[in-house]
């Protein structure tokens, strides 16, 4: 995915305003508390000064108890202040984080398949889970870092100017010098750290390649060659990392060295005025402490700013997702009548019969540049069984995507019961479609949860009836807790065939008018395969169905077969017609027949 490099003003923070809005009172309190805490931090050296001037200097312990009481008072105040402030900060971080995730997730539910086709799952997942987290950290903690460090610098500079403007000026000169220096190195570090991350991911994919390609590596006897190449990368990693350490080592050393310079400056210039009697020793000690503590906050602020810059990308990507508009959205009138995805108005829904018609449909995928359908016409009366065949990756899903309105035709229309699909809501259509996927997708949870996915209020009797219809009751009975058994993440506890059977039952339970079957490619044992074949022929009875077939033997009885190659429909007809034609379908069929021969003996 290429990111556009359009810079957002102020690291994109203004854009985040709507998400920040509910927490503004908290944020303001946090800022006040943070400034207060810095103020108190800058007060401690003053206590020292007081002790030096009044107890040590005057040789008396008068007022020591009041001194202790005040000291403890300030300390307690600061501790409570910090406690509240840090807690609030964490809360704002997590709350914003949560709101951003909710927003991203909800928005994803409304996006069309064009989006999901153009962005892979890992990429989208990172937008929802990791970008949001980074933005939360930035808004809460990075902001507080700036507040804390910034106000601390201002406080101690103020104190110094109050105590002695001339000496304060000497030290204040060091601030911009340090800032420029830190900025210069921070920039270099960002560049080199990016490089390190790149090499790091190369090394990870090297591991991946070496492990997944073990069979190839061994049969080709190239272990040593692969190892040598791997070592080139690890050596590069070492060199770059050490180079980065040169920068960061130099950087931290010089920053702390500047603190010592400030200290030397105070001792020299401050020493002179103290000897002259303008200063008390206490004031000198305050200056010494301030001088030593000033460089670190400067460094912190600059590092924080560079972190803010780094988060800008996350903000950009997040808003790119939020601002993506679905290209298959329902029109305003449709939403008014039928409701949207989250608030359906079921009372206005018409019954769906199941006549489908492609009327002069021209289509190209939003991310493709070739038309895969041109002026395509096909009438599918209620109850027709349409089979779609072709090699893996040939584009067999296109028609199905159009029937389901996962994509909209570039030109022309798909009619459902004689009316353009766009005239009714997506949810209406989807509620009447059953979809059984090639790689059956189950959600983690119980068998019952999964089966009820298409019909929330299904009773156990209905569930068992559906299971029976597709001969899947055995699968559930074998499981320890029956319908309450856990299917595991992505249905891991079940075999592919079992998952397939359950997803049939799920589709049946929803009692759809239109059924889409994407047949499994994975090899399953013959008994299960037989069960699935039977299930298919049971469920398509009386329904309009589209079967994406991989095993051609299963579709010889289809009412119409569409043959797809390179995304285009190149042949259509019944099995017999196509076999007689001796075209591409014939070749596909023969090839599969050879493999099938073995299961027949």
């Amino acid at each position: 995915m290429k990111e556009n490099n359009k810079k957002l003003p102020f690291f994109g923070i203004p854009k985040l305003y709507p998400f920040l809005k509910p927490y503004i009172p908290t944020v303001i309190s946090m800022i006040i508390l943070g400034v207060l805490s810095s103020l108190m931090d800058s007060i401690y050296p003053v206590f020292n000064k007081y002790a030096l001037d009044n107890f040590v200097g005057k040789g008396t312990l008068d007022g020591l108890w009041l001194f202790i009481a005040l000291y403890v008072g300030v300390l307690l105040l600061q501790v409570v202040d910090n406690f509240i402030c840090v807690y609030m900060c964490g809360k704002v971080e997590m709350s914003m984080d949560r709101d951003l995730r909710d927003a991203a997730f909800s928005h994803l539910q409304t996006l069309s398949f064009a989006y999901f086709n153009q962005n892979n799952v890992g990429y989208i997942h990172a937008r929802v889970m990791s970008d949001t987290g980074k933005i939360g950290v930035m808004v809460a903690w990075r902001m507080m870092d700036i507040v804390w460090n910034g106000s601390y610098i201002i406080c101690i500079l103020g104190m110094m100017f109050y105590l002695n403007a001339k000496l304060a000026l000497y030290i204040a000169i060091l601030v911009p010098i340090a800032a420029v220096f830190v900025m210069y190195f921070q920039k270099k570090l960002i560049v080199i750290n990016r490089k390190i991350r790149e090499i790091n991911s190369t090394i990870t994919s090297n591991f991946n390649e070496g492990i997944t390609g073990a069979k190839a590596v061994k049969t080709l006897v190239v272990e040593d060659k692969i190892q040598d190449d791997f070592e080139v990368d690890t050596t590069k990693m070492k060199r770059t990392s050490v180079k980065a350490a040169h920068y960061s080592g130099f950087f931290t050393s010089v920053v702390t060295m500047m603190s010592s310079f400030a200290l030397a400056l105070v001792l020299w210039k401050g020493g002179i005025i103290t000897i002259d009697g303008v200063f008390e020793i206490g004031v000198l000690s305050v200056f010494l402490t301030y001088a030593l503590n000033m460089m670190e906050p400067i460094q912190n602020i600059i590092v924080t700013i560079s972190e803010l810059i780094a988060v800008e990308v996350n903000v950009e990507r997040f808003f790119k997702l939020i601002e993506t508009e679905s290209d298959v959205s329902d029109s305003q009138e449709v939403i008014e009548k039928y409701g949207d995805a989250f608030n359906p108005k079921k009372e206005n829904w018409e019954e769906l019969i199941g006549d489908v018609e492609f009327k002069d449909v021209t289509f190209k995928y939003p991310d493709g540049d070739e038309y895969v359908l041109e002026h395509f016409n096909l009438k599918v009366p209620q109850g027709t069984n349409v089979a779609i065949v072709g090699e893996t990756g040939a584009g067999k899903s296109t028609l199905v995507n159009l029937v389901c309105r996962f994509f909209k035709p570039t030109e022309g229309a798909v009619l459902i019961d004689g009316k353009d699909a766009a005239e009714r809501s997506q949810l209406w259509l989807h509620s009447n479609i059953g979809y059984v996927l090639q790689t059956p997708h189950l959600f983690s949870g119980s068998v019952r949860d999964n089966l009820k996915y298409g019909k929330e209020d299904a009773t156990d009797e209905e569930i068992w009836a559906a299971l029976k219809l597709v001969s899947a009751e055995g699968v559930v009975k074998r499981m320890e807790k029956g319908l309450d058994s856990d299917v595991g993440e992505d249905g891991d506890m079940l075999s592919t065939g079992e998952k397939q059977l359950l997803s049939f039952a799920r589709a049946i339970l929803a009692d759809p008018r239109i059924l889409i079957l994407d047949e499994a490619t994975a090899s399953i044992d013959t008994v299960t395969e037989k069960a699935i074949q039977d299930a298919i022929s049971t469920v398509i009875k009386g329904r309009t169905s589209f079967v994406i077939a991989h095993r051609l033997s299963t579709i010889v009885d289809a009412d119409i077969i569409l043959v797809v190659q390179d995304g285009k429909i190149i042949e259509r007809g019944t099995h017999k017609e196509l076999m007689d034609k001796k075209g591409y379908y014939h070749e596909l069929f023969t090839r599969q027949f050879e493999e099938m021969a073995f299961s027949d003996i």
Partner: protein
Amino acid sequence: MENIKKKRFETKGQMVSYFLKGSVIFFSLSIVASLLVTFFEFIGPKIVQYTINYCIADTVTENDSVPIYIIRLMDALGGKDHLKTHLYLIALVIVVIAVFTALFRYLYRILNSIASERLVERMRNKLFSHIMHLPFAWHSENHTGDIIQRCTSDVETVRAFISEQLLNLIRIVIRIIIAMYFMIGINGFLSIFSAVFIPIVVLYSCFFHRRISKSFQKADEEEGRLSAMAQENLTGVRVVRAFGREKYERDRFVEKNYHYSNLWIDIMKLLSAFWASNDLISGLQVMVITVLGAVLCVQGTINTGEYIAFVSYNAMLTWPVRALGRIISDMSKAGVSIDRIMYIMNSEIEEDKEGAIDVSMDQDITFDNVSFSYGNGTDEVVRGASFKIEAGKTTGILGGTGSGKSTLMYLMDKLYDLPSENGRILIGDTDITDIKTSCIRKNVGFVLQEPFLFSRTISENIGISEKELDIAKVRDAARIAALDETIQSFNKGYETFVGERGVTLSGGQKQRTAIAQMLVSRPQIMVFDDSLSAVDTQTDAKIRAALSKEIGKSTVVLISHRITTLMHADNIVVLDKGRVREQGTHEELLELGGIYKRIYDIQMQGT
């Protein structure tokens, strides 16, 4: 192969010290550098003390604690009276010391980085090379994701343990000792008050981090669940849409999300309480020192300069001590990672039997009553198979899915070890267990059923088994595999990058690349494992014709379920469920009228 560790590591320490070879010296030097940094840092307050006592306040007491070397240095600069009017000289001394501190700090960082990068490099290289030499059976038993995790994040944990946690522990302890030395030099009584807080802070934060790590774990698990839910929603987006369950999905996610962030908010409450209480403890300590120091000063036990120096030393300890508790509690995590890495390093690598020999591979290969099953409990894939692959001839193996035809070849190529009670495979008269693995694999060219491409250019892929890339040879091989034209049609031709991060080739193109890859080394034995299944019938025929000219004296094994692919072989072995059912030439088998004939009839019927 001297760089492969064959011995088992008995203890974690043994393995860690093995990895530390070559970096231990840099780690030691970095500790020395950090010791010098600490020393120079601690000189600073002493000079301030001198300046205040001797030059500014003139409060030198009888047993003043300025070290003798500082007094000598100051005398060399002209003595206290001279310095009083030339304070900049003292400032210069501080600057010089600061430069030295910076220098050693820089050295420390560099040495530490060199050491830890050397360590990581060695760990990665050793792990990778060990993995490369582990038997294939190990690879099929272990999950890729898990191994990668061990090689990346566990390696990182171990690196952090040694170069950060362990080293910081040492540094902080050194710092405490040096600080204590200087502080006791000023006043023993005051030092006790400074010191008692150290164990309190350390124990408190140890205790706290142990306690909170459970909450962290819980939050991590919850995050995992939330993340899995999002993942499921995305991978199952078709199901969600097709069943119209957007609202259900959103509500489910929002609820879980709420729960998860609340867990974190609870953790934040704990964390902020911890930080605040820690602030309180350190703050109280600083106060106690400030007050007691003032009292001692008033009593005349210590002087002003000493007082200021002591307060500085005390402040220099606050943060390291607070970090100590965290470091100690974090260190326990590394043990698990070391164990996980040790699992890989202690897995036994492929090794030839002692006295294994090289043999000439232009001999007959005999399978003698071979049986095999993958892993315990699973059904046997090969059951008592006996047949002969004649040298210089073409042998076809016909069988359906799961008939064990590929397994036989894997056994021959020693990808899996054949237990001695399960029959023998002989090359000539020598059992393959007595032959060097490298000898067999180098002479057997294996075109795998599912070809694997490395993320390199296409020419590098084809010529991968050659030491020097010879483009003429590569092109020649590509031509035989009917791939040359296809490659030419790519933008960058043979320099096109393929694999994970490059151009995606189709199944047929991959298979043809694999064939070319094998042809480059012209091995004595060529095995084609269903290698043309994704290639269309015309190209298939074209490749076979080109191959037959090239094969020469090589022994060829063709594995297929397609009779047309192997009907011209000199000998055809028919496998069914791991058993050899028939063998002979095409004509003989047809004559026989058994399985082969039936399959032939069915397959021909289609055409």
